[in-house]
Structures are given as structure tokens and as C-alpha cells.
């Protein structure tokens, strides 16, 4: 079923130098062949990039997580890829290896459309770099069931707050456009006046262009994303500052 097999396939899963999660200076480095289950269970990510941990927890089922890799989730470039909003929210950068050496590119420039990346023949996604910033993050997934489901809408929020009550949010959402998008218009407005977030919700429409497919209609996605954003931001705004 599906596409015919290509003439040759190269199995790269056992390249141990491309597996693992470590802190390197001011960033966390993740090998492209690190499994989603290892992402889910990793304590460094849990501490610094909770949205990635939460996305991995809701990712497919155990058997798939044991085989699926973060590099595969990125290069597959699905608009609904569950690790992607958290990686965008963390300003992830990628190193791409080829015979000629390395190049480095941000994930938002690497993914250019559904299933499309800037990866050229002879290139391999090698490492994912996440700058450690001390920002909080969380992930929300809406699927048609809890497991083994493709997201109808997903959302990562990254934020910092000051004791004076100021917030700085960054919001990234998947399954609402050809690639993961930043809800920039909304975030700019809400950062200037967090308590008025309800009035800014229509600005979300400026950054998304959802389609109707078997999982949901375009209108439903527009509506439900606003509901999720409102609920998640209120939860953050109403939590006691620690």
C-alpha cells in the first residue's frame, strides 16, 4: 500500500552519534535520530522545554514513539507534526550535514510547505539546537481521540513573566496553515495588554489559513484555536507568580 518502494533505501537509525540529548554551553543539542520516546522521558527537556515533553507524551502510541525520531518529525514537515510548534516556540536551529560540511538554519526557514523542506539531495538533518532561555512553555493538542490521532489543531506557548505582572508570550500553532505559524499579530497585542486578550482573539485569523479536511472544517479550526488560546492564556495569567 502507499507509495512504491524506491530502488534503494539507506537505514541510518543505528548511527549512534546522531542519538542523544545533551546540554552544550547555552543550548540543548538533540541528535536527529533521538526517538520521540527518549524526548518524552528526558529530564533536561522536561526542565527547559516542557512543551516538547508534553507534545511527546501525546505523540501516537508507545510502539511508534520507540521508532519515530525528532529528525523524522521535522523532515516529514507535516503541518500537523506534533513536535514542531514546540520547536518553533523554542527558536530551534538545525545543523544539516553534507559531504561539503555543515550548514545551520532555523526551523522556520527549513520547513517551507507541507512535506517540503530546504533539504537537498546528499544532505542529512544532523542536530537540533535549542537555546536555553529560562522561558516557560506548554503544549496543547486537540485530536479526535487521545492517542494515535493527528492533531486537528495544536499549539505551543512560550512565555516569561515579571514580578510586576508583565508577560511576554510567543504562540505557535500547527494544523492551521501550510506550515506551523507564529500567531504574531495576536501575541504583539496581548503582550502590550494581557488582560484584554479576549478583544484581541480575532487577530489570530490574520496569521492562519486553515483548510477543511477529514478531521475538521476550516471554520471549526478557526473557532477552536481561539478557544484554546483563550483558555490556555487565562490559565497562565491567573496562576500565582512564583
Amino acid at each position, binding site marked *: 500500500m502507499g507509495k*512504491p518502494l524506491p530502488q534503494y533505501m539507506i537505514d541510518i537509525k543505528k548511527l549512534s552519534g546522531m542519538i542523544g540529548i545533551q546540554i552544550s554551553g547555552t543550548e540543548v543539542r538533540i541528535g536527529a535520530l533521538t526517538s520521540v520516546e527518549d524526548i518524552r522521558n528526558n529530564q533536561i527537556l522536561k526542565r527547559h522545554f516542557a512543551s516538547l515533553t508534553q507534545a511527546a507524551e501525546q505523540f501516537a502510541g508507545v510502539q511508534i514513539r520507540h521508532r519515530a525520531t525528532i529528525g523524522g518529525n521535522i523532515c516529514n514537515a507535516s503541518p500537523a507534526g506534533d513536535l514542531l510548534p514546540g520547536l518553533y516556540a523554542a527558536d530551534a536551529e538545525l545543523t544539516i550535514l553534507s559531504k561539503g560540511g555543515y550548514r545551520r538554519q532555523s526551523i522556520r526557514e527549513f520547513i517551507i510547505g507541507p512535506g517540503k523542506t530546504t533539504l537537498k539531495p546528499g544532505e542529512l538533518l544532523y542536530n537540533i539546537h535549542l537555546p536555553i532561555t529560562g522561558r516557560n512553555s506548554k503544549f496543547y493538542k486537540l485530536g479526535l481521540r487521545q492517542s494515535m490521532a493527528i492533531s486537528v489543531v495544536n499549539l505551543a506557548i512560550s512565555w516569561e513573566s515579571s514580578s510586576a505582572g508583565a508577560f511576554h508570550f510567543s504562540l505557535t500553532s500547527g494544523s492551521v496553515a501550510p506550515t506551523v505559524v507564529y500567531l504574531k499579530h495576536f501575541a504583539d497585542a496581548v503582550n502590550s495588554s494581557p488582560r484584554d486578550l479576549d478583544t484581541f482573539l480575532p487577530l489570530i485569523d490574520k496569521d492562519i489559513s486553515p483548510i477543511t479536511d477529514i478531521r475538521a472544517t476550516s471554520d471549526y479550526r478557526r473557532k477552536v484555536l481561539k478557544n484554546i488560546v483563550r483558555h490556555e492564556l487565562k490559565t497562565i495569567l491567573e496562576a500565582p507568580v512564583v
Partner: protein
Amino acid sequence: MTTELFDLEVSLNGETIQKQIPTHLMLVDFLRDVLDLTGTKEVCGEGECGACTVLLNGLTVDSCLIFAVETHGSQIATIEGIADDETISRLQQAFIDHHSVQCGYCIPGMILSGEHILKENPHPSRSEVISAFAGNICRCTGYHKILDAVEFAHQEDHS
């Protein structure tokens, strides 16, 4: 497409197996059609249902999504390796005691997922057990009796 052959060597249920196989053969077909180990079931063939679950180097995987050649040099455990001729596992006995089996087609995969969670986490909570079975679909039981069996197996382990 010409059929390329590969000399595969794996440790299967503790026994070294060497076979020449086509490179495009899926692991589930290698187990069922080449080795005649038909305890592993294929249902959806696309990684949705978990009926074909086996352990690859101790981790649960869907054998319908893996080429047999990818397992070269690895350890594989199937449902046939869980019991020996004399005894069945504690979890298998718990499935019998709790009437967890109806049509039975999903059960080999359920047992392997259950053995895996109990090895990783000998005393899982109910919600951890549910999440461990997220990739195993059963269309008969409604799951409760399967979850009861896993819970009983680890509580028994407690005493």
C-alpha cells in the same frame, strides 16, 4: 523492481536465526511467513492497531512498519518467547483469570505491551497502564478486563 537478498542474523526469542531474505520483506511477514511464528498478528498493516507488536531490543514496536533487514544484529521477542512449554507468564495467567480475551486477535500484542510496561515500571498506576496501551486497539473487550489483568499481575508481584 528486482528482488535483492540479504543474509539476516537475529536473536529471536533467545535463539540465533540466520536466513536469506528479500530486502523489502516486512518484519511481521518474516515472522509469520518465513519462520511460521503466527502468534504475531497483522491487522491494519499501517501501525495504527498494535496487533503486530513485538519487542525489538526490549522495546515494543509495530512489526508491520519495520523491514526485517532493519533488525539485523538485534534481539527480537515475540509472543512465542513469552511462555515456554511448561509455564505461561504471570501476565498471561492474569489475562485468563480476568477473562480479558474475547476474539483474541489483539491479545499477543497486548501481552507484549503489558510485559514491556511491567518491566519498565513494575507498579504502574491505572493511567500509566492506559497510556502504555495507547497503541493497542481491541474491538471486543472495552479494555477494562485487559487493564484489570495488568493491574492484578503487578499487585500480585507486590505480595
